[in-house]
Structure formats: C-alpha cells, structure tokens
C-alpha cells in the first residue's frame, strides 16, 4: 500500500529581523512526512524545532523555500485558507495545555467541532468518544482548575483529536509533566497513531518520550543534522 506525503518541505529558510540585521532560525531544510508517521523534531533550545512546527501549522511564514502541507502550498494560501486547513485538518497540543479555564472538559473538547459547524448530535458522539480515548469520562464536567497537569494535557489531546485531523502538531507536550504522566500521555498518543491515520509531529527535547517515536529528526542551529527512522520503538 502506497502512502502519500502529508508534509513536503524543500529548501526552507526562515529568518527573523533583529535590529538592522536578521537571525536565521532555519536554513536549507528539506523534509517529507508520510501519512501516519510518528515523528519527533528533537534538538536543544533555539535549534529551530518550534519555528519549523509553526511553519508547518501555518502560524508562521517561510522566508524562502516551499512548504506543502496536506497538498496545499502554505506560502500561497491566505490567512483564512490557512485557518480553514487548521480547523479541518490539524490538531495542536501545547506545553502548557492552553485549555480555556471557564469551560468544562466537555466544552473545551467540543470547541473544534463547533468551529467546524458539526451538528449537535454528532458533536455529542465525537466529544464523548474523544474523552473516552483519553480516559477522562469521570472528569467530563470538571474545569481545568479542578484537574491535575496530566488530566489537563489529556483534555488538550482530546481537543486536538476530536475532529480526527490528518496532522497533529505537538510542541513540548510533556515538558510540564512528571515521568509517569509523560509516559501515560505518550501511550495515549501512540495508541491513537496506531488506531487513526493521523500523522504526529512532536517538537521536543524530552528524553523520556524518545522511546515512543518512530522517526527522530535532529535539528541544530536551524539545520537537520540527521533523520533517523526507528523500526521498533523502545516503548512500542
């Protein structure tokens, strides 16, 4: 069975203005990501992994080069088109969860479906299923302030996958969690990756989660140092 690429990046350069000069965050990055991959962008702080993640997510623009995500050329799309791609085909997970504090778990998870104009009955079904996936049935009416960090991150995962996106981008998803919670989160994500056709891209420098990754791309000073596929991950 042939798999198509969800991400195609060629000769990507990203520069930021600094005073009268500029700082190069990414240079000559070439990258392809196939459907269903479970990839980690790994490297020290300032290596360019978050910038690369932002460009893939259409949150930032490339200075040079081409970025194709889900068969759409990101540099040729408008803000609204990028918003639509994110709304329909992408999920985001953040280091600090970024749940809306006044809403319950159910309501936080429901938000992407509301934005996609999903019917109420479908919403109930999908939200309930997503919450079951992450094992938060007993917290469905809790608010973020009433939950632990691990539970908040599981809620954020449910929110990211509730609309079954083609691509899930996670920026340091375990950085604020202890070892046990980090493993729990990665187990959930890796299970979802197996059960769904969603591709996962992580930006991380957390050693704990490396064992779950099926492909590790090392970044340093804005360049890809190496790109290694792992046939049998340690925690598969």
């Amino acid at each position, binding site marked *: 069975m042939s798999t198509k690429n969800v991400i195609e990046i060629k000769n990507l350069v990203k520069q930021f203005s600094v005073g009268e000069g500029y700082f190069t965050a990414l240079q000559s990055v070439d990258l392809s990501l196939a459907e269903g991959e479970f990839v980690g962008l790994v490297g020290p702080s300032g290596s360019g992994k978050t910038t690369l993640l932002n460009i893939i997510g*259409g949150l930032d623009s490339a200075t040079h080069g081409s970025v194709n995500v889900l068969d759409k050329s990101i540099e040729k799309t408008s803000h609204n088109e990028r918003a639509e791609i*994110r709304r329909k085909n992408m999920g*985001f997970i953040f280091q600090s969860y970024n749940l809306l504090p006044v809403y319950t778990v159910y309501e936080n998870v429901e938000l992407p479906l*509301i934005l996609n104009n999903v019917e109420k009955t479908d919403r109930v079904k999908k939200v309930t299923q997503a919450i079951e996936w992450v094992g938060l049935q007993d917290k469905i009416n809790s608010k973020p302030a009433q939950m632990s960090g691990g539970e908040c991150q599981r809620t954020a995962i449910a929110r990211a996958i509730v609309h079954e996106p083609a691509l899930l981008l996670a920026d340091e998803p375990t950085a604020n969690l202890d070892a046990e919670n980090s493993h729990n989160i990665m187990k959930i994500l890796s299970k979802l990756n197996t059960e769904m056709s969603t591709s996962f891209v992580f930006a991380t420098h957390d050693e704990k989660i490396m064992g779950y990754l099926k492909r590790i791309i090392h970044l340093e000073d804005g360049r890809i140092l190496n790109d290694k596929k792992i046939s049998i991950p340690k925690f598969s």
Partner: protein
Amino acid sequence: MIKFLAKGLIRDRSRSLFPLLTIIITVTLVIFGIGFMEGAMNNFLQSTAVISSGHVKVVTKAYEKESSQLPNDLALFKTNKIIQNLSDLYPNYFWTPRITFGGLLDTPNEDGDTKEQGPVFGIGIDFHSKTSRQIEIWELEKYLLHGNLPKNTNDALISTKLAKQLSVNVGSTVTLISTTMDNAFTTYNFEITGIFNLNKGQVDRQMMLVDISGARQALGMEGAASEILGYHQSLYYNDNEATSMRNDFNLTISDSITKVLRDEASYDALSYMNGWNMISDIEKRKLPRQRTDALSDNQMYDNNEDWEDLSVEDPAIYAPTMIALRDASQLASMVDFSNVAMGVMAGIFLVIVTIVLWNMGLMNGLRRYGEFGLRLAIGESKSQVYRSMIIEALLIGFVGTLLGTILGVSLTYYVQENGIDYSEAINQMSSDMVLPNVFYAKVTSELYYIGFIPGVLATVLGTMLAGFAIYRREMSQLFKELES
C-alpha cells in the same frame, strides 16, 4: 459559536462582571456629575431669578439705570396690558408683576409707640391670581415655618431673621414707613400671617413678602409695577434663549416705543408695535410729561452720567426694556464662566472616564491574547476572533451603559427631588450673592445619551485597538504569548 462565547462571557467574571461594574459605575458617575453640576448651576441662577431678576425682566429704561435705588417713581404702568402682550409674544414664558421697595418696619407696643424698628426689604408679588406660579417658584409652602400664606391685601410674610429682630410673631401688626411712587411719605399697616426661611444665605435677612395689591396700596402704585419678571415655563434658565429674547424685544419693541415717545409725529412706528399702542399712547400723551416734571423736581437722579443717551427730560426713559438674567446682578461673567467651566469640567470628566474605559477595553483585549492564539490555532480566522471581541465589548458596553444610565438618572432624579443640604457652609459665608442652601441636581435630556460616549464608544474603541494587534502580529508571536 455565539452561544459558546456567551457561556464563557457569563462565567468569566473578569470578562463580564468586572467590566460591567466598571462601566456601570463610570457611566453613573458621569451622568450624576453632569446632572449635579447642571442642577447646581441652575439652582444658583434660579435663586437669583426668583428673588431678583427672573429669567428675563421688563423695566423702564430709567428704572434699569437706577435699579439699585429701587426707584418706584420710574416704574411701569398698565402692567396687566404689558403682561398680556408679553405672554402673546413669548408663550414659553410666564410673566408676573413685582414691586420691590425699601423702608422701615415699625412694631408698636401696647401704647402704640414704637417698640422695635428696622429696615425692611419688601417684595410685592402676585400671590392671588389664578395663573400665578409665585408660591410654586418661591417654594413658600416648603419654606413657610409658621402661619399661613397671605389671603388679604394687607397680609404679609416676614423672614425668621426679621421676625426675630423686630420681636414679632404671626398675628402681629407692623407698620411700613416708606415713600410712594410720587415720592410722598406713606405709612401702611400689614398683618403678619406667616414667617418663612428661604434657606438662601443672607438674602432674606430683612425680607418681607406681601401681595402686590398690598404693595400697590401702600406705595400708591395702582396698575404699576417696578418690574415684570418672566420665567421659562420649565423654570430652567436657558441663557441663549433669554439673551436672544432680550435682543429681539429691545430691537423690535423697546426701540420702537422709544422712537414714538421721542417723536410724537412718528405714528408709523406704532403700526408694527403689535399691541403696544395703548401704553405708548398713554405714556406719550400724559405720563411722561407729568413724571418728567416730578423727576425734575427731585434731584435724586441729577447725577445721571451713566444714563448715556437718556436724560431725565427724555420721555423715552419710560420705554420698557428687557433685561436677561445674565445682565442683572453682574451675573454675565458668572454665567459665561459657569458655561465654560461646566463644559470644561464635563469634558475633562468625560475624557478621564473615556480613557479609563478605553484602557479597560485595551487591557481586557491584551489579557486574552493567549485565548486568541489558541482560537487561531484551532482554526478561527483573525476576522472571526476580532469580530467576536468587538461584539463582546459592544454587548458589555451597551448593557453597562444602559444600567449605568438608569442608575445615574435615578440618582440624579433623587437629588433633583431631595437635594443636598449645604446650610451650614452657606450660612457661614457673608456673600451678597443669592446662594441656595440646598443644591438640587437636574435631569436633562443629554443625560440619557451622554453615558454612551464612554460606556460604549470608549470600551469598543479600546477593544478595537487591542484587537488591531491580532492583525499586526504574526500568529506565532501570539503563540509565544499564549505559552508565556
């Protein structure tokens, strides 16, 4: 999505309750502040208007020149006719005759000799006409401490201070010693039916109020009055209207009569004097000569350099002229100053609260950059986020302003009805100005919409400004703020 956002808005007190309370309080303060300033200034002007000037008043030109001497020999005649004409010309105003006079008030002992004697400032007002609003505007039912309002020609009310000075009570008889309008000596007995305290500082220190019929009998002024005072039906002084009315009257009526009085041959002028013919005829044919002769005998007005183009020989000195409140009691600068000061104070007040609410809108927007970053990440467009911010600000601003306006107008109305009593402070002042002891606010039409400037406009503009940053920032920058 709207339902989802509304749910968040209601639950997040920092987004709804706090801004709402801030707007309510601010709008209430703006409305009450402006209403109170407006009311206080109107109280001050109204006190002067009631006691001495009216919103406008009509006197003879000569009376105007010598008004400080209460010169009843220069009074107006045929006042009923003049009042009728004024009512026809200016129906928004009601007109009332007034005689002001000075003299001595004498209280006799059991033998009929003088027990106490003191100067009196007497005012003859129209107590008894069916259409008279004098009891209302003097608020005599409120300020009458003892006794009753005058019913008969020789009934009188006196102030508490004068009653104390003369050791008299309700039921006492007092004798006015004064001069008639023909400058003859006169005495007249009044019976005190009531004692009042106007709560207007030192103004009523020597005051006696009598019905105008009593004053006319006492001073030999049948059909005459020192002044005819005009008040806007709403009792609210509008300086622009009053001055334009005064200009109109003096140009079209007063000058015409002056011309006729000076030139008996110019009958043409009478044709556009609209009802003033009768007075003019009387004044022209009989009274000027008689009164001018009387004046010539009386050296009182010889020193009349201030009369400019008028002289005691000039019959035109009896032509009626209109004076606006701002012309009387040197109030022009006070009125101008108060108008400017009120405008400036209201403006500053408005600007300050506008900045406060602008800032609140701005801070509220900035505080939520993280939330906006998240919403953008999960697929809302910038315009959707921006629009929802504005709708939210508009909603909070409108509800807050509405509640603030209701509260502000209610508070202003309460103070309009009940007032704030400054008696102690006012009584310690030794000013000649007519200062009210109780200041009342005033509910004006502008109070119903002025709150929307800071309440809605500033809040929404502040939010819009905060929202511009969403457009100007790279989304990744919003994300950094989201993560921070």
